[in-house]
C-alpha cells in the first residue's frame, strides 16, 4: 500500500528535474531581459528549436534502442541541397506553385527515408558499430552537399522561395508551422514511445537485445526502423529549414548531430539505451536553445566565453536532475 504512494514520488522527482532546469533558465532570461518573455522571442526560439527538435525526437528512438546517429546534420544539409536542386530544375516545367513545393517535400521525405534506411541496413545487416557507420556517412553527405553546391551555396530560385517561405514564417493563430509540426512530431513521438509496441521494443532492445531476441522481438527490423524513422524526420526538419533562408551549403547543419544527441541525453534518455522519453528530449532541446538565446540577449560576458557558459549550464542542468533523482 505504501508502495503505491512511493512510486509516483520518485517518478515526479525525475520528471521535475529537467523541468526545473528549464524553469530556472526561463526565470534567468526574464530577469536579464524584459523582452525575453515577449511573444516574438518565444515564437523565435520555438521555431528555431524545431529543426533540432524534430531530429532529436527521432534520435531519442535510435538511442533508446541502443544505437547512435552522427550523420543527421550532414544528412539534413545533403537533403536540403538535393531538394533545392530538384525544385530549381523542376521549376521551368512546373512553374511556381504548390506542385513544385510538393515535389520538393516528397524529395526531402524520400531522401531522408532512404538515407536512414541505408544507415540502418549497414548497421543491422553487416553488424557494424553505429558510431563508425554514421561517422562515415556523416563525411559522405557533407562531402556530397559541398560537391552539389560546387563548394558554394545552393540557393532556391528567388520567386519560388517567396512562395515557399510561408512554410517557415506563417502558421495558424500566430503559431508558425515549424512549431506546429514540431509539436505534432513530439506528441506522436511520445505516444509511440510510451504506448505502442514499437516503443516498448526499442526500450527492450536497448536494455538487452538478447532478451528481446529470445522474446521473439524482430530486433534487426526494429533497429532498422529507428534509423529509417530518424531519416524521415530529418527530411521533415529539412522541409521546414529550406524555406527559412532558401539555401544549403557545406555549412548547413554542422554539429546538429551533437546538439540533437545532447538534447536527448539532457532530457533523461540513457546514452547506452534501454530507456527513453520524448518529452524529456523536448526539454533538452529547449534548454539548449534558451541558453544561446539568453546569451545573445545579454552582454555581460565576452562573446568568446559564450561557449564556456553554455558548457557549464549543460552540465549544471544535468547535475540538477541527477541530484533531485538521487535525493529520493
Amino acid at each position, binding site marked *: 500500500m505504501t508502495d503505491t504512494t512511493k512510486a509516483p514520488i520518485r517518478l515526479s522527482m525525475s520528471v521535475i528535474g529537467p523541468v526545473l532546469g528549464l524553469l530556472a533558465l526561463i526565470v534567468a532570461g526574464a530577469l536579464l*531581459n524584459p*523582452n*525575453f518573455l*515577449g511573444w*516574438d*522571442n518565444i515564437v*523565435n526560439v520555438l521555431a*528555431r528549436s524545431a529543426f533540432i527538435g524534430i531530429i532529436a525526437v527521432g534520435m531519442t528512438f535510435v538511442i533508446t534502442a541502443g544505437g547512435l546517429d552522427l550523420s543527421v546534420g550532414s544528412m539534413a544539409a545533403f537533403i536540403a541541397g538535393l531538394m533545392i536542386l530538384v525544385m530549381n530544375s523542376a521549376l521551368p516545367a512546373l512553374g511556381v506553385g504548390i506542385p513544385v513545393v510538393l515535389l520538393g517535400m516528397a524529395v526531402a521525405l524520400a531522401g531522408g527515408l532512404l538515407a536512414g534506411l541505408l544507415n540502418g541496413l549497414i548497421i543491422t545487416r553487416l553488424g557494424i558499430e553505429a558510431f563508425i557507420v554514421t561517422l562515415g556517412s556523416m563525411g559522405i553527405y557533407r562531402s556530397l552537399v*559541398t560537391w552539389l*553546391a*560546387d*563548394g*558554394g*551555396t545552393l*540557393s532556391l530560385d528567388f520567386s519560388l522561395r517567396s512562395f515557399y517561405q510561408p512554410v*517557415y*514564417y506563417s502558421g495558424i493563430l500566430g503559431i508558425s508551422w515549424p512549431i506546429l509540426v514540431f509539436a505534432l512530431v513530439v506528441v506522436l513521438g511520445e505516444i509511440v514511445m510510451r504506448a505502442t509496441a514499437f516503443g516498448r521494443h526499442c526500450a527492450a532492445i536497448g536494455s538487452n537485445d538478447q532478451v528481446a531476441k529470445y522474446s521473439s522481438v524482430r530486433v534487426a527490423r526494429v533497429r532498422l526502423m529507428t534509423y529509417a524513422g530518424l531519416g524521415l524526420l530529418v527530411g521533415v526538419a529539412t522541409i521546414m529549414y529550406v524555406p*527559412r*533562408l532558401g*539555401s544549403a*551549403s*557545406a*555549412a*548547413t547543419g*554542422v554539429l546538429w548531430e551533437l546538439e540533437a544527441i545532447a538534447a536527448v541525453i539532457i532530457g533523461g534518455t540513457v546514452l547506452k539505451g534501454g530507456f527513453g522519453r520524448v518529452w524529456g528530449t523536448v526539454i533538452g532541446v529547449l534548454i539548449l536553445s534558451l541558453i*544561446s*538565446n539568453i546569451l*545573445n*540577449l545579454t*552582454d555581460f560576458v565576452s*562573446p*568568446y566565453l*559564450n561557449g564556456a557558459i553554455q558548457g557549464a549550464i549543460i552540465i549544471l542542468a544535468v547535475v540538477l536532475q541527477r541530484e533531485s533523482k538521487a535525493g529520493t
Partner: protein
Amino acid sequence: QEAETRVIGVSIPAATHGWAGGMNYFAQTAVERLEATYPQLDFVLATASDPAKQVNDIEDMVATRKIDALVVLPFESEPLTGPVQNVKASGAWVTVVDRGLAVEGIEDLYVAGDNPGFGRVAGEYFAKALPEGGKIVVLRGIPTTIDNERVEGFQKALEGTNVEILGMEHGNWNRDDSFTVMQDFLSKYPQIDAVWASDDDMAVGVLGAIEAAGREDVKFVLGGAGMKEMVKRVMDGDAMIPADVTYPPAMIATAIEVTAAGLVSGAPVSGQFIIGSVLITPENAANFHYPDSPF
C-alpha cells in the same frame, strides 16, 4: 621549352563558408584552365579543414609530389609559417595568398587582401550613410585574426562619429547562425538603424531575420566579400542592400596564374600585390558581378 613537368601545389582552406567556397571554386577553375594551357604543368590541389591538416597537406606535397612551387592561402598565419619556411628551404617557389605569414620575407610572391581596409571601408560607409549618427549592430565572423583586424578597422573608422555600436556577436560567417543572432538582436534592441553583417553570407541571414520580424526601423544591411546575389541587389538598387565591400575570392586564381606563368616563362614575378577592398555601389556594381561564379 623543356619537356620536364613541373608541379605546383595549391593548399587552401576547405569550403566551409560562402567566401571560402568561392575561393575554392576559383582555385579549381584556375587549375583546370592552366593545366589545359600548360601541358608541362601539373597541379596538386588540397583543401584543409584546420591548420594542422593544412600543414599535413603541404608536407605531403613536398614528400610525395616534389612540388616546384607552392601557392598557399594559410588557414592561419602563425601555424603555417614554419612549414612554409621549410618548403621555401627545399628550393620551391612560394606564393602566399590573403594572409601574410608571421615572418616576413619567406614568400616570393604575396597576393593579399586587405582586412583592416575591409573594415575601414565598411566603417566609412556607415559614417557617410548615417551622418546624424545611429544605432547599429555588428555580426562578426569566426573568431580569428582576420575577423579581429576587420572589426578593428571598422571601429577605427567610426571613431568620432555618432554611430553607436549597440552590440556585436559572432555569426561565424554562417547564414543560420547570423539569422539566429539577428533575431535575438531584434528582440533585444527596439531600435536598430543599420547592420554591419561583415560578410554576405551573414547578410543573407540578417535579412531573413529582419524580414521575418517585419521590422521597419532597420534602414540597411552592409555585407561584404561581393557575393553575386548581393552584388546583383546593389546593382538593382535594393534599398536594404545599398552597397557591398569587396574581398574577392578570385585573388587565389590571380595568384595561381601568376605563379604558373612565372614557372613556365622562367621569369618569375615576385613582389606584393595588395588587392584593396573597395565599396560596391549601384554605379560600379556591374564591374563586380560574376554570374557564373558559385559565390
